[in-house]
């Protein structure tokens, strides 16, 4: 069965650079969530989209932006990167209107800022 695909799996950037993380949800899933997980931390919610519109916003820095495209894939854009942005970034998808919904996670993108 198709799963949530994230790319790239690993990314190394220098301070002040820009990074773009991509997420391809499970086919027919209309909701995408982004989470940031620092070393030894629980996943922190960043932002979510439903039907290509932002539906919820968490602790996402102003330096970050995200969008969901017409094919439902999502991109997280991170500018002016800081050392503290080094983390595992998860994307998850779900089917918003389905009653027995659950979130399926991608394998994550490990971002290292040097």
């Amino acid at each position: 069965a198709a799963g949530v695909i994230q790319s790239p799996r690993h990314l190394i950037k220098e301070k002040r650079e820009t990074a773009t993380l991509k997420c391809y949800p499970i086919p027919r899933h209309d909701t995408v969530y982004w989470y940031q997980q620092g070393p030894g931390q629980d996943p922190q919610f960043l932002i979510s989209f439903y039907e290509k519109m932002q539906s919820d916003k968490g602790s996402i820095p102003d330096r970050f932006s995200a969008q969901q495209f017409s094919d439902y894939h999502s991109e997280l854009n991170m500018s002016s990167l800081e050392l503290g942005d080094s983390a595992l970034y998860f994307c998850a998808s779900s089917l918003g209107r389905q009653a027995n919904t659950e979130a399926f996670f991608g394998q994550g993108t490990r971002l290292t800022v040097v």
Partner: protein
Amino acid sequence: AQTVTQSQPEMSVQEAETVTLSCTYDTSESNYYLFWYKQPPSRQMILVIRQEAYKQQNATENRFSVNFQKAAKSFSLKISDSQLGDTAMYFCAFMVYSGAGSYQLTFGKGTKLSVIP
């Protein structure tokens, strides 16, 4: 706002024994979903078990079962016949409808489980 509390940062269990991980949550919603996710050293997030709040029957998945106490807002995970592959971080998560077809998913801080041979 929804909160999820896992009061046991670390636990250990002997192989083949049973262990229970606790989770409590706070919400004013009446309909929601609860999950246990497992995160092994690979850091992949794997769904272990789920429970719909409107269902009174506790969910079970092979060696994994939950004790869902809605009135007490408690959702513990029992792992029977523990195996070395169960060693991982376990996150309790709460999902609630936030309007316009969208859901909000909140995680606890996690419990690090070590299965000892």
